[in-house]
């Protein structure tokens, strides 16, 4: 048995050596992202083209199911190797930089004066962490206010407009909440991006401007009052938003919106496809108040372990460039990252979705991306939100605890 095993081992080693030998002719750049072949048609076409055009570089793509992407990424990097280029959601941008995983692109950019960067500046800056460019955005989704026209029509309420204040929105939501029809006016979700967008559009934030402190923000009396009010929307018999139990009953908020039981919700551009496929009569508008709304994004980064950063740079440029963005819009309706393309597609995007595009002008960076304190602040906020929801102390006390939690996390 042992002999056999040794033989098998030797064979494997031999095979891997030969594999390396063959690959030596071209520089192989490995790339990974999550999704499936259907949702990645644009990237795959781009890669095919790239490989045909370059006889010195070969891209090897690895599409991983979303459910297992994190595990796959970590195991592959644990050996000190991993992928040359990897995708990340904006929620993890800071984490990877903190773990020293992505390579700063500054030098590569400086050494490539011919690079024709057409990316929208705000979207490009999304990949800038602590003053260094680490990520190049490939796909992004602004949050906007989605409203169900049929529900508005049913109760004769005027559709949302761009000059709505939150008072207008809540007043409308009250009219649209009809217990007899199991209909709710607004969706005061616990999902922190939606909740923080709500607060941001009311001019409230959980961190200071340079994202270095939470004191006086997360625990300010104004924020406490707003949080209590927001949670109050989905509690009690006079609630205007479905609570967790209502969502169970009606199959979640997407289902409620589709089945005309929910009038308004804050969501991202990805719901466009869901609602269109389900045939909902809906519209979109900028978020009420000052319109500030969070932007979700996914981006590519080059790994620090990459042995050929120059080759990887060529690849990452191709995968986030204008041509790929155009393909991505064509195949998956992902919003282009380039202004000229964005203008060109406006006409085809559909009247109902123009609010999403309008929101782009008010997009703000999620707290987690703004500084080292960002992610701990979001975690503390999420915990505090849950505690307020379940009445686990006074709002002031809970928010004071949250501030302490952030301090503790920073100390580590």
């Amino acid at each position, binding site marked *: 048995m042992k002999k056999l095993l040794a033989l098998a081992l030797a064979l494997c080693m031999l095979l891997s050596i030969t594999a390396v030998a063959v690959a030596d002719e071209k520089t192989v750049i490995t790339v990974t992202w999550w999704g499936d072949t259907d949702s990645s048609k644009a990237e795959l076409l781009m890669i095919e083209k790239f490989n045909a055009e370059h006889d010195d570089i070969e891209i090897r793509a690895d599409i991983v199911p979303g459910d297992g992407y994190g*595990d796959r990424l970590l195991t592959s990097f644990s050996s*000190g190797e991993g992928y040359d280029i990897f995708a990340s959601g904006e929620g993890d941008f800071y*984490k*990877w930089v903190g773990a*020293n*995983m992505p390579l700063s692109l500054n030098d590569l950019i400086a050494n490539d004066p011919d690079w024709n960067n057409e990316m929208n500046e705000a979207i490009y800056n999304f990949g800038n962490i602590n003053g260094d460019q680490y990520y190049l955005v490939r796909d992004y989704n602004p949050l906007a206010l989605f409203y169900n026209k049929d529900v508005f029509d049913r109760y004769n309420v005027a559709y949302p407009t761009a000059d709505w204040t939150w008072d207008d929105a809540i007043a409308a939501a009250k009219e649209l909440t009809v217990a007899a029809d199991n209909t709710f006016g607004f969706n005061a979700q616990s999902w922190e991006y939606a909740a923080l967008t709500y607060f941001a559009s009311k001019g409230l934030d959980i961190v200071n401007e340079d994202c270095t402190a939470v004191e006086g923000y997360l625990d300010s009396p104004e924020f406490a009052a707003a949080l209590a009010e927001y949670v109050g929307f989905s509690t009690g018999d006079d609630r205007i938003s479905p609570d967790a139990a209502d969502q169970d009953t009606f*199959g979640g908020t997407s289902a409620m919106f589709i089945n005309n039981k929910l009038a308004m919700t804050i969501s991202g551009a990805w719901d466009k496809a869901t609602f269109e496929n389900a045939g909902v009569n809906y519209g979109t508008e900028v978020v009420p108040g000052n319109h500030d709304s969070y932007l979700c994004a996914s981006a590519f980064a080059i790994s620090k372990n990459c042995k050929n950063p120059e080759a990887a740079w060529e690849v990452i440029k191709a995968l986030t460039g204008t041509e790929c963005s155009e393909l991505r819009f064509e195949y998956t309706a992902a919003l282009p990252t380039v202004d000229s393309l964005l203008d060109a597609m406006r006409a085809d995007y559909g009247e109902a979705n123009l609010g999403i595009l309008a929101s782009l002008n008010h997009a703000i960076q999620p707290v987690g991306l703004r500084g080292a304190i960002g992610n701990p602040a979001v975690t503390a906020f999420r915990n505090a939100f849950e505690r307020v*929801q379940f009445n686990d102390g006074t709002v002031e006390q809970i928010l004071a605890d949250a501030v302490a939690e952030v301090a503790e996390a920073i100390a580590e």
Partner: protein
Amino acid sequence: MSAITADKKPKTNLNQRRQNRYGYAFIAPWLIGLFLFTLIPMLFSLFLSFCKWDIVTGLSSIQWIGTQNFTKIFNDGKFYKALEVTFKYCLISIPAYQIISLIVAMLLNMRIKFMHGIRLIFFLPSIIPTIASSMIWMQMLGKEGILNQGLALLGISGPSWLKTPQTALYGLIIMGVWGIGNTIIIYLSGLQGVGEELYEASAIDGANSFQRFFKITIPMISPTIFFNVVMAVIGSFQYFTQAFVMTEGGPLNSTLFYNLYLYTKAYKDLQMGYASALAWIMFVIILFFTLLVIRSSSFWVYYQNDDKI
């Protein structure tokens, strides 16, 4: 010493040598596998529990920090919370699942028409992938779900089970009943092994069905019970998947199972050393309870061949 025993001694030694030789020959595949595939990762994780490692920067960034992880753990409020949730789960689910499995197995052991089909039905839940079953259970445990509709018949108004801090853990325990198909099968086969003639003899003696159950069935299937209980102890303390998919530890950490906390530490917070230390604490806990069950087994498990562990 008498001549007879003196004569016997070398013979037992010879026999013992043979026992050793054959015994090790038969368990050799496992022994080789143990050293090749199992032990190295285990020891590596033990080593990691004294280190700091963020995984993604590779092996070279592993840093020895002594017992710091353990001292930190013992001051970590979430560690105690996770222990509490896990112990509560084990305390309820281990006995409850065993009793329910045994009862269902006894029902399935009857000679009834269509039993083939019915047995198949009870095995079904173990087959459905978690991805599908968790979707279904979200609805069944909801405010207007099937469970609450049943309770409503009894005049009880049930909560939204998984969304309420006080009930989320019980929701998961109720859901777990659905997946005990394997345990049922093993009990069922154990019951099939109990000879009918034993029941017949006791029926003549005038024993009622309760007496028969406790005097014949239980002792006869005690090795089966032993097997299932040991595996339940080992498995329950490591409960993970459903909580990971359905509640993510919430609401208010009410379903923060130990392994879920450990997973979060390792793969979300990138603290592999801390997570490994957590894992080895859990190892000691499980080992303790398993040994407890094994020790107790001499009082209640009856083996054909006196083959104790």
